[in-house]
């Protein structure tokens, strides 16, 4: 017993001995952990993003019709063809106009909705839900509702019915490019689908503005309403506004579903993605031309993004401002 006690007193504590052992397995191997958790996603990124981008670049120099493994090298011919296609070049202008309009409009509408529901004292949850719910609707489903029920060209379409009450003849909203009523259909659809999401972002930002600021402003004589909004609310929303504008620009770049479903075989009102889809994935199956267009579009997006970053200072540290 005493021997045992003596040995216990002189031997190191088991816990200490355990700490001294080199750490093994998942807890000990940081490199293994890194690859274990990032590896699958890295593999996915390489397979589904980097390989297609590289392959697309390669395809753009080949005559790749009805094949993605072509052998006929044609240099820059696909680029020349795409850049001489009035549908593609026209779509770049269309996109620019669309983005220039839809970004500020959605920004203003979502901010307006946020201000509205922020100040509500009754049925607040209901109205927040009403404005947010369209976000859950798919672009395709919404496009079909807009096209077939609200803005169809027959007398019992919702829009034409309302116009009929005022004696206005039925309007072909999407078939006729002059006047360009199709923009009304596209813009209302996009606003309906998107405004609720950005409203939530603004709402969160509004709730984060300290009430002391408004109290201090009131003491200093600021009038509630426009003056408070102009000099307190809007500056406090600067970071959120920047993020919203960036997200809206990205969404505008990605415009596809509603244009594809609403405009059909029109040659106007087509963003570049729709043109490229029809060239490459659609009936023409020209992966060479489609890839060349994708490369051109990617370069343009990079230029615009860099330009936007320069203007808005997005990603720049506070100290460098």
């Amino acid at each position: 017993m005493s021997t045992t006690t003596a040995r216990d007193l002189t031997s190191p504590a088991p816990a200490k001995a355990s700490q001294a052992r080199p750490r093994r397995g998942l807890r000990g191997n940081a490199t293994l952990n890194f690859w274990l958790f990032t590896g699958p996603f890295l593999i996915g990124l390489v397979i589904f993003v980097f390989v297609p981008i590289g392959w697309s670049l390669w395809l753009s120099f080949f005559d790749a019709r009805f094949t993605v493994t072509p052998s006929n090298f044609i240099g820059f011919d696909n680029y020349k063809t795409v850049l001489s296609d009035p549908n593609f070049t026209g779509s770049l202008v269309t996109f620019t106009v669309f983005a220039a309009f839809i970004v500020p409009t959605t920004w203003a509408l979502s901010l307006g909705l946020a201000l509205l529901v922020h100040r509500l004292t009754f049925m607040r949850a209901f109205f927040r839900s009403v404005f947010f719910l369209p976000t859950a609707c798919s672009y395709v489903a919404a496009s079909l509702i807009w096209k077939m029920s609200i803005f169809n060209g027959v007398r019992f379409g919702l829009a034409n019915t309302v116009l009929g009450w005022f004696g206005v003849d039925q309007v072909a909203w999407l078939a006729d490019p002059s006047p360009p009523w199709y923009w009304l259909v596209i813009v209302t659809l996009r606003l309906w689908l998107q405004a609720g999401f950005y409203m939530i972002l603004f709402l969160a930002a509004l709730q984060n503005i300290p009430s002391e600021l408004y109290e201090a402003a009131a003491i200093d004589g600021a009038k509630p309403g426009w003056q408070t909004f102009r000099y307190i609310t809007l500056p406090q929303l600067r970071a959120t506004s920047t993020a919203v504008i960036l997200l809206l620009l990205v969404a505008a770049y990605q415009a596809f579903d509603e244009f594809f479903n609403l405009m059909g075989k029109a040659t106007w009102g087509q963003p570049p993605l729709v043109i490229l889809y029809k060239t490459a994935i659609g009936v023409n199956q020209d992966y060479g031309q489609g890839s060349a267009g994708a490369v051109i579009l990617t370069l343009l997006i990079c230029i615009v993004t860099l330009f936007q970053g320069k203007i808005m200072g997005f990603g720049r540290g506070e100290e460098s401002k």
Partner: protein
Amino acid sequence: MSAQSNTSWNRRSILRAAAGLAVAAPLAACGSNNGRGGGSGSGKQLVQYFHAYGEAGVEQAVKRYAKAYTKANVSTQWITGSNFENKLFPALLTKQAPDVFEFHPQIQLIKSGQVADLTDIIDPVKDDFNPADIKSHTVDGKIYGVRMIDDPQFFFYRKSMLEKANVAVPTTLDELIEAAAKLTTSKVKGLFLGNDLTAIQNNLIWSAGADTLDEKNQIAYHTDGVIEGLTKLRKLFTSGNLLLDAPADFWDPSALNQGLCAIQWGGMWGMPATQAALGDDFGVFPFPKIGSSGKQSVYNGGWSMFVNAKGDNVEAAKEYVKWLWIDQKQYQEDFATSYGFHIPPRASIAAQATKLKSGAAADGVKLFNTYGHFDNIGWTQAMITAFNDVIANTVRKNGDPKSALDTCDTKVNRELKKLFG
């Protein structure tokens, strides 16, 4: 000690399993859903692609035929929406490609080696097929598809509405424009040509006395007659007498059946629905002639069955196509006449199709035989799309027809050069 050891082992096992799943799940998701049914039957697994037919019962019929085939498990992908081509063509480049699919004869499918030569299965019954259908599927003496149905397209009109407005059945484009004006009221538009007007683009060419391509596979559509037709269609488009943006497009007869228009471009497949809605109060007539050198025309569309030449089961697929679309005459007649009306491409089946022998259906068959123009296998989807743009830019957008046709020529010539050198 042993207990501690077990605990440690279990934790590691769980983590390893989780990590394994994390790796395996995205890879597994890469594509097992190829549409092949997990059928319990023996034999090959075949997949067939069909576009969605609008008539009730067609999908069930196609699946019923497939189920009756005993030498392979045939699963059907019924592709809804109006972009069947957009799903079929990319699929043909992948391992998930269908073994058998329906489409129209297109030479680029042959040039790119995507469809198998079916000459050996058609040859024994070749003489029983409509010769124009055989011709439209033949390249260098080989036949690349089995015609399932012929679908003539022409105008449907409400007899009572024309009588009330004292309008005769139009035989020229000028008369059609005039008729549309007389038939238009506050509630009914005179004419419906489809929502984007591209449905009648081939007839515009044929009725102006031109053709898409000539015998030497050179451009034949760029004529003064076609320019005249485009100019007149623009006048019609802006007249306010044309139904535009209808909820359903030309392939659905509901615009006429619901009284939205007095005359509608449509296909013979819609005839049973129109008969059900209007009884005998409707007739059919061909696309009217344009200019002095034009003549009336009917587009003989239709669908054909092709075998994916790059698939793993080419022989089994050919065997299935032979069984269904050559041997099983009762299914072919059922498919052609029990749902929408189509003309069977086999003379022996057409001869016994009693539903097509009277009334408007018989008139439709007569128009098919008198004014019909069949698919030109050299007029490819890219060329069709190029002419879609002509319709969009001239008729709907008021562009200059000559310059629009020049632009179309550039695209079509580029395509012709790639196909024929």
